[in-house]
Every structure is written in structure tokens, then in C-alpha cells.
């Protein structure tokens, strides 16, 4: 199935019965799939009048404790950013999917990874984080969708799937996750008091600065816990690696092909693939910095994740960038050429 369909079906299997969205290439198959399936299973599909409306509908359902999602592509996610901040500020779990395309501005419809900063550095106003998962196969589009819903519920915060146009459009066989029976206690949800309890309030407005400060500090305590417990990554041929490639999503697949070629030429190179972009796999990268002589960040942007790699390894070793942008995908040959030149002493 297509990557976009895998996300949609996995979301339904994770118990998401509410979808609000607005069409944009290259993620429209998510909405199209939901439009076909939701009415048949008693769920809600609603094409809102805009991205802004859609994300606020998500906020409304999230406040009732029900699993809910929206999806879009880069310019549409920018429009949703206000609502994402409100979700974070209201401590509400929800899934936002970004199937990235080229930018900035209207950019183009071909694939890109240039919303990395937007995804992991907030991307909206205020101090907050969201959990960001980067699938690298159609299989992961499905499995990480379940993970995202679980983590969002567990920590009461928005989670994002950060995919790209290729991941959304490409077709691969998928083993779909079993319908998820995992339930989370949500005593905060707005479900009606039935006259039996004090009413709940879901809100992001705090009249006293002392109280707002307190909620921010508390939220960041929770973020620390997530950074400690929820990091996901894949290591590939890292045991004896002297060069460490760091790459996520579609480019990690390209990089893997290049690494196989480089190994055949006797170059000791491996890869660390972050699966959670936030929390970022800082510890494993820091450990790799003690063994490796150089890092290569392979991404489809101007070097956004590269900065997080430099931070993670505290600039102990040089980090080189191998990138294509604007809808172009790096070829295995280009990545191999970069590995070879770094192996021969490096180019900056």
C-alpha cells in the first residue's frame, strides 16, 4: 500500500475515529482514505474550510480524550502551527502528520525534509516540544503511527509524523498493526460531569504569570522524562565504523545503499538513523563521537539536522553535510562520493 494509506489505516487501527483535514499534495491520499473508510466504521471524516479550522477541530476532539488526527504538507502545517501551540499549551494529545514538500513559500510538490526545524524546534510560539517520529519505510509509516498515538496519550502532548512526499507516495507491502487495545486513563478529559465530579477545564490561558511559569516548568520536567525514556534510533554497521552517517526518513535508505557500496571498497562507515527526531538520540551520537573520526549528515534540506548532530557530539568531531534540496533526492552515488572524500581527509 501507499505510505499515506498506511498512516491512515494504522491510525484507524489505533482507535482514531476522528480525522479533520484539508487537501494538499503530496499527502491527500490520507484524507481520501479517511473519507472512504470513516463513514463505514462510524467515525468522523471532515474536510474543513481551512487548515486552521481543521487543527482547531482536532483540539476540540482532543479535549474530550478521544484519539484524533490531522495531516497536511509543509505550507499547510505552517497554517496549523498556531493550533499546535494551543494543543501543547492545553496539554492535549493529538497526531499531526506532515508529508513534507519543497519550500520555503509555496515551494513545490516534490519531496523534501526542510521542515525539520519547524517540527523539532517548536515551529509555533511559546516554549514547548512535540514528539517527532520519522518513518523510513511504508511499514514504519504504519507502526510509528501507533507509537505516536501511544506516546501522545502517555505524555498528554501533540506528536508528529514527519514524513516526506516520497514516503507518502511510494508503495511497499505492509504488515498492519493489530487494532490497539491500549487505553490511557484520561481523568482530565471533558466528558460531562454527570453531576458526579468537579468540572474539568482544558485551557492554555493563565491569568497569573506565576501560574503560567509553573506550568511551563512542569511541562519541561515531563520533557526530560521523555528524553530519558523514549528515544528511538537504528544503528547500522556501527561496530567498527570510523565514519558515522546520520540520516532520517527517505535519505537514510539512500545512505544505506551508499554505505554498502563504501564497505565493499573497504571504507569503515556506518549509520545512526534517528527515528525520534525529538527526543534526539544524543547519547548514542556522543558515544559514536569517541570512536569515529567524522560525521556526515545526509538530508534533503540546507543542513538543519546537522546542527543537532553538532550539539549532540559537542562539536568533538567534524560534521559534513551531504544534501539535495528543492524536491531533489540525493543519489547513492552522491552519498558514496561524499563518504569517499571525507574518508580521504574531509571536505567542508
Amino acid at each position: 500500500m501507499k505510505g499515506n494509506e498506511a498512516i491512515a489505516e494504522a491510525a484507524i487501527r489505533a482507535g482514531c475515529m476522528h480525522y479533520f483535514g484539508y487537501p494538499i499534495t503530496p499527502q491527500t491520499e490520507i484524507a481520501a482514505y479517511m473519507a472512504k473508510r470513516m463513514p463505514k466504521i462510524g467515525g468522523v471524516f471532515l474536510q474543513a474550510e481551512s487548515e486552521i479550522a481543521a487543527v482547531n477541530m482536532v483540539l476540540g476532539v482532543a479535549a474530550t480524550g478521544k484519539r484524533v488526527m490531522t495531516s497536511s504538507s509543509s505550507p499547510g502545517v505552517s497554517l496549523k502551527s498556531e493550533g499546535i501551540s494551543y494543543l501543547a499549551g492545553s496539554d492535549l494529545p493529538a497526531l499531526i502528520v506532515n508529508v513534507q514538500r519543497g519550500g520555503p513559500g509555496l515551494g513545490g510538490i516534490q519531496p523534501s525534509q526542510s521542515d525539520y526545524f519547524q517540527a523539532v524546534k517548536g515551529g509555533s510560539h511559546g516554549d514547548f516540544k512535540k514528539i517527532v517520529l520519522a518513518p523510513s519505510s511504508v511499514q514504519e509509516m504504519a507502526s510509528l503511527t501507533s507509537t505516536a498515538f501511544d506516546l501522545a496519550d502517555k505524555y498528554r502532548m501533540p506528536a508528529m509524523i514527519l514524513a516526506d512526499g516520497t514516503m507518502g507516495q511510494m508503495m511497499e507491502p505492509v504488515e498492519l498493526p493489530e487494532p490497539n487495545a491500549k487505553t490511557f486513563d484520561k481523568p482530565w478529559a471533558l466528558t460531562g460531569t454527570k453531576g458526579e465530579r468537579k468540572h474539568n477545564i482544558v485551557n492554555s490561558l493563565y491569568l497569573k504569570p506565576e501560574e503560567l511559569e509553573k506550568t511551563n516548568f512542569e511541562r519541561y520536567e515531563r520533557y526530560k522524562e521523555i528524553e530519558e525514556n523514549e528515544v528511538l534510533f537504528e544503528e547500522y554497521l556501527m561496530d567498527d565504523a570510523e565514519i558515522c552517517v546520520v540520516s532520517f526518513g527517505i535519505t537514510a535508505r539512500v545512505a544505506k545503499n551508499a554505505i554498502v557500496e563504501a564497505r565493499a571498497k573497504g571504507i569503515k562507515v556506518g549509520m545512526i538513523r534517528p527515528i525520534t527526531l525529538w527526543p534526539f538520540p544524543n547519547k548514542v551520537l556522543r558515544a559514536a563521537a569517541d570512536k569515529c573520526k567524522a560525521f556526515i549528515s545526509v538530508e534533503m534540506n540546507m543542513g538543519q539536522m546537522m546542527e543537532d548532530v553538532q550539539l549532540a557530539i559537542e562539536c568533538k568531531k567534524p560534521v559534513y553535510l551531504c544534501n539535495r534540496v528543492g524536491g531533489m533526492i540525493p543519489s547513492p552515488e552522491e552519498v558514496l562520493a561524499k563518504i569517499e572524500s571525507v574518508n580521504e581527509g574531509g571536505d567542508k
Partner: protein
Amino acid sequence: MESKRITLLAGHYGSGKTNIAVNYAFYLKNLGKDVVVADLDIVNPYFRTRDSVDELNEAGIRLISSAFASSNVDLPALPQDVYSIFDNRSESAIMDIGGDDRGAYALGRYADFIKDENDYEMLFVFNKYRPLTPTAEDAVEIMREIEAACKIGFTAIVNNSNLGEITTPEDVLASVAEAERLSEFSGLPLKMTTVTENLVNNLNGKIPNLFPLTLQKKIV
């Protein structure tokens, strides 16, 4: 295998229409015909007939494709030279239609030309392993939506049931019964079952009208 002057390929999105269109063009070309392929897909942003332009050119197969196909803009434009198909009846034409009823709307504007000449077949591409079309009932629903959108009725079915690279001969064999049910259900003949070249030897003689898909596009 009998063919008509115009072959229309339609079906659920992602069912394999474009791949079959390109391979069927080569098949007709090898029979000595002049062949033209037209990309009428106004839905799909990636993976277009344009991706095979070099192979088609080399084989002397004419490609009609929007200038915006496989580009960075999202314009559902139809190429003006589609009309050349109806002017020049010496060419065999394959028209690759966009997925679902949304994609088939684009075909509607040519429906009168096609029905007036009345030398066409419209093939419904069926992949049992697509998530929204596992059964004949699901497929017929999409079939009827497409017919309503383009104002032309299907004439036959192509069974293209596959799971991409991991497709086994057993997967294909297991799909035939559902494809035959679809045939019975819709009253349309099963024209062929399409398989990648590596499965042909294994399935020869076990499935009628096996059609090998020689040309495959792999992205990453």
C-alpha cells in the same frame, strides 16, 4: 491477444495502470503497430508515464504528457495533443487514466470521440492486495464510480494483483478466484493477469492469458 485501436486503462489509484500502460505499449509496438501513450492522470503527483520517457522514445513510442507532469507544480492540466489520437486513426493509442472517479473525470471530455469511433476497450485494473479493493464487491463499487465519472463503460478486467517486490507465485494464484468473481459479478471478461517477468516461468500454464510486465520502475 485481441486488441482495439484505443485501449483505456482505469481503476483504483495505485492499482498499476501506468506500469501496465507502458508495458502494453511495448507489446503492441512489438506486433509492428505505431503506438502512442497518453498520460491523462490529473491526480497523481509522482510516478508518471513521463518517468519512462527515455525507454518509450528509444522504442519509437510516442508519449503525450502534460508539460507539468513530474514537475514541481500541482497543475491538473491535460495536454492539447490528446486530440491527435482521434485525428490520426492509424496509430494504436493507450490512454492512462488517473485513479478512481476523480481521475476518470478527465477522460469524460473525450468520451464522445471514443464512443463515436467505437474501436476501443476500457480495462479495469484490479489489485486484490490494495487495501480498499480486497473483494470483488469493493472493486465493483469503484468501477461504477469511474464509469459514472467518465461516461464510458468498462469492457474487460486486468488482474494485476501483486505485493510489489515480495509477490510470490502463490500470491498471484490466490488472486485469480477473486478476479474471476469480479468478472462474474460485473459481467466483464478477464482479459489478462499481469505479473513481473521473474514470475512468468513459475506461472506459465497455471493461469490463462498471463501478461509479463518487463519494464519496472524502481524509485528508491
